[in-house]
């Protein structure tokens, strides 16, 4: 029921208001705003948001400032169809179109972030203090970006000064749980040179949602982000850009009563880019990017302070790339690129220190055969030695049916390269089992036979010849079809249907028995799944000072083999201590951690006369499952699901004497948390700490 009312508010409210109120004529400002909304992520060229044939969302700096958000995960959670999900190992990754965070590429100024030690890219490590806008492209985008862009791309565009002289701002935010966040931005611009520096410090005392244990839900931490940037217009047609970023985080690591330690992350990226425009038709870009991510942790036994365990993870990415654009005429253009990825990883439990070199090239044709029709054709090739090379095509169109109504659609191929674990793991588990990467099975299994770890050939269940071919990257075909309707220019309504057909999902499987009674596991292309749904977005600028926006996503996400198994009567469930019963086809709930319904509703109000702005934002997530609780490994309707929840956030900001802004706010007003209610209960929502009061001061100079 709660969902229904939210749905009505989110999607229909703007329409209801329309009939009741006289709309102010603010055509000009709205039009300029819409024209100003340009996106670079979707096509790798500057494109107006409203003209794109792909589903794209923008989060503008204004929204970041007004909401008082400081970390990327918080603001993404307020966008339609996006939710950050915590895995048991930690790290908060984004779920987009029902796909897990491994399948969304995250970029800063067009270059990728690395450090997915357990598949998840932890978005809480990203400060939003120097961001101009966040661009979110949904649907497979491997035709431009290659691996990981299977579900979509999030590109964080950092800010750049456009005023001459020295400017900057200083921000401090203080909140519940002793959350401290400090930003210093310094910019210098003189004619053709722009310099920028950004420092962020973030810390928290952590929090504890489960009083039954002596262990924190989030351990105390602090981190720093440093970013420097240089942009130099050598000539009118030549620009040089350089950026470096360094991130450092230290935190306590206390997973149990008996072990305690620390963990640290060190990450840097260096990004160099030179553009040159040769003439009206040709321009080119030379780009060089390097990034290194280092994480390590240790645990000591509390009793005698001896070492219990330690691990490390060291990843390097180096990418030179050249890119060129060619404008055929006013209607058509090409963009193409050529580059090389060099990746190396050194981590605990690996058979080798893998080094991969993969060349890539891509080409995209963007054309308007008629005034009301835009077509994009693109493809990319990624060559690999260690797993199968990939060819990723994509086609997209946008057709302006009437003045106010446009249709758009796209079909594309997406893939995610096998991660290093899946290729090179050589892990001896504490319980005696072994996990081998796909590429080491053929060398390690014979070794284990020789050493007697495996008794005989008969103990090998999966023939070694199955590991002769290369592993296939996980891949999908993604479909997006949508309509955009602007009944009046202040009101924007969008609907988008999506489907991702994913195959070759990599999972581990028992391949041999060991003489110690445990097993040897390795990775193979096993599973198939799909996600599909519908997304609605609406935004209405009622007046210059009032804006309402709402969004909703309906999602189905299922494992295809599970669907078959339920259909064929092969799925059963049993409650603890009771007999099993057969499940019906309709009992299958779908993949873990997916909510069928997600909605958001936001009101932004700004008063220019009294120089304040305020906003209230609500998000809703319907029930979902994180664990199988009735002994069949599936999620079905008899499982113990995590209840639906709603969260409301509020913020108000007031400007004094032009340059001072004071803000206060409450995140999670109704103090929602997932605290265990009994001994057998667990905290499944670890990333929602409860109500946070905060205040912030921003000084502009």
């Amino acid at each position: 029921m709660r969902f229904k009312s939210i749905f009505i508010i989110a999607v229909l409210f703007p329409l209801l208001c329309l009939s009741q109120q006289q709309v102010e004529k603010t055509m000009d400002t709205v039009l300029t705003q819409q024209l100003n909304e340009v996106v670079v992520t979707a096509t790798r060229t500057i494109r107006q948001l409203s003209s794109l044939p792909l589903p794209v969302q923008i989060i503008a700096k204004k929204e970041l400032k007004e909401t008082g958000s400081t970390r990327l995960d918080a603001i993404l959670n307020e966008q339609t169809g996006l939710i950050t999900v915590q895995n048991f190992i930690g790290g908060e990754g984004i779920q987009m179109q029902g796909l897990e965070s491994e399948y969304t590429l995250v970029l800063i100024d067009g270059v990728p972030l690395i450090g997915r030690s357990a598949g998840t890219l932890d978005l809480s490590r990203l400060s939003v203090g120097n961001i101009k806008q966040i661009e979110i492209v949904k649907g497979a985008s491997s035709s431009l970006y290659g691996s990981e862009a299977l579900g979509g791309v999030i590109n964080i565009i950092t800010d750049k000064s456009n005023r001459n002289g020295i400017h900057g701002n200083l921000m401090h935010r203080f909140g519940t749980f002793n959350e401290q966040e400090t930003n210093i931005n310094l910019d210098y611009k003189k004619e053709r040179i722009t310099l920028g520096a950004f420092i962020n410090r973030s810390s928290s005392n952590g929090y504890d949602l489960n009083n039954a244990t002596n262990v924190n839900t989030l351990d105390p931490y602090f981190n720093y982000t440093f970013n420097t940037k240089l942009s130099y217009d050598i000539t009118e047609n030549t620009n040089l850009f350089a950026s470096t970023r360094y991130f450092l985080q230290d935190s306590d690591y206390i997973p149990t009563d008996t072990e305690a330690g620390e963990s640290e992350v060190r990450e840097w990226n260096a990004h160099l880019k030179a553009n040159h425009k040769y003439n009206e038709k040709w321009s080119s870009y030379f780009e060089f990017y390097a990034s290194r991510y280092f994480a390590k942790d240790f645990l000591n036994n509390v009793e005698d302070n001896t070492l219990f365990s330690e691990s490390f993870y060291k990843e390097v990415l180096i990418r030179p790339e050249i890119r060129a654009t060619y404008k055929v005429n006013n209607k058509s253009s090409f963009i193409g690129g050529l580059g090389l990825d060099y990746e190396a990883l050194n981590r605990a439990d690996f058979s080798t220190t893998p080094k991969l070199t993969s060349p890539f090239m891509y080409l995209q044709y963007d054309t308007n055969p008629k005034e009301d029709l835009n077509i994009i054709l693109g493809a990319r090739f990624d060559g690999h030695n260690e797993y199968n090379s990939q060819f990723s095509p994509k086609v997209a169109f946008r057709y302006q049916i009437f003045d106010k109504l446009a249709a758009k659609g796209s079909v594309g191929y997406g893939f995610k390269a096998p991660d290093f674990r899946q290729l090179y793991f050589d892990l001896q588990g504490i319980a005696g089992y072994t996990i081998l990467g796909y590429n080491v099975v053929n060398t390690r299994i014979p070794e284990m036979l020789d050493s007697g770890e495996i008794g005989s050939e008969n103990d090998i269940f999966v023939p070694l010849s199955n590991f002769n071919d290369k592993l296939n990257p996980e891949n999908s075909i993604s479909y997006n079809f949508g309509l955009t309707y602007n009944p009046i220019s202040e009101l924007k309504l969008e609907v988008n249907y999506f489907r991702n057909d994913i195959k070759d999902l990599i999972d581990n499987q028992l391949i041999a028995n060991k003489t110690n009674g445990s097993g040897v596991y390795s990775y193979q292309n096993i599973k198939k799944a799909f996600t599909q749904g519908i997304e609605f977005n609406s935004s209405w600028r009622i007046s210059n000072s009032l804006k309402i926006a709402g969004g909703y996503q309906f999602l189905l996400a299922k494992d295809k083999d599970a669907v078959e198994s339920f259909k064929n009567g092969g799925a059963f469930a049993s409650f603890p201590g009771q007999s099993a019963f057969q499940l019906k086809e309709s009992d299958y709930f779908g993949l873990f951690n997916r909510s069928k319904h997600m909605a958001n509703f936001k009101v932004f109000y700004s008063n220019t006369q009294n120089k304040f702005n305020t906003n209230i934002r609500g998000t809703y997530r319907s029930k979902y499952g994180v664990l199988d609780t009735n002994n069949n490994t599936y999620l079905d309707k008899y499982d113990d699901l995590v209840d639906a929840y709603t969260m409301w956030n509020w913020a108000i900001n007031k400007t004094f004497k032009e340059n001072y802004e004071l803000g206060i706010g409450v995140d999670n007003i109704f103090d929602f948390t997932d605290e265990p209610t009994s001994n057998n209960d667990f905290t499944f929502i670890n990333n929602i700490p409860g109500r946070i009061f905060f205040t912030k001061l921003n000084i502009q100079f």
Partner: protein
Amino acid sequence: MKTVKLITLLALFISISSCSNDNDDPQLLQIEIDSVLNLHAPQEGGIDQMGNPIPISGEFTKFDFSTGATTTSSTEWDIAFRGTSIIINGGVSSGTTDEPERTGNAAAYIGTGTMSGVKAVNTSYLEQDSVNGYVLSNWYTYAGPPTHLISPTAGKLLIIKTRDAKYAKIEILSYYKDAPENPDAYSDEERYYTFNYVYQPNQGELTFE
């Protein structure tokens, strides 16, 4: 045409009544439907506090379908339990410490279905314990973090040919003492089997009805 129909009906009638005559056969023993609560199956070894594996040892708890009770007999047993390991009195040892000698000719497989749904034994699936492992090793699911529970996988039945060629089916309900409704791997005592079983005491009879 009418006569043909009549003859068919008559033939059907005769065959049905002859069937019911079979069922009245006084020679057949009644099928036994029973359950066992808290069959204790302790083990030694496993994983020490530092997480290092130690070879598993300890006596298996043996069960005899003909008496419906546990036994210490070295020959008169059908299946035996130790921790999560279940062995049958047929085949050869996989070589773990304290495994009893298999003196019988028992066989088994893991069937799929509900207790009432599996009505007969499919003898083509029957296998014996071997050096490669136990036939009945895949009966449970380990949940991993955070619950760490060991639960009988729903819809998995142990189908057993006893040492003397009789058949039984078992549905394990719990691995924790007193088969709690909300088991807790941290506080409930583990290695206590609770199961339902159906035993067909007539030799060679493959059905459970």
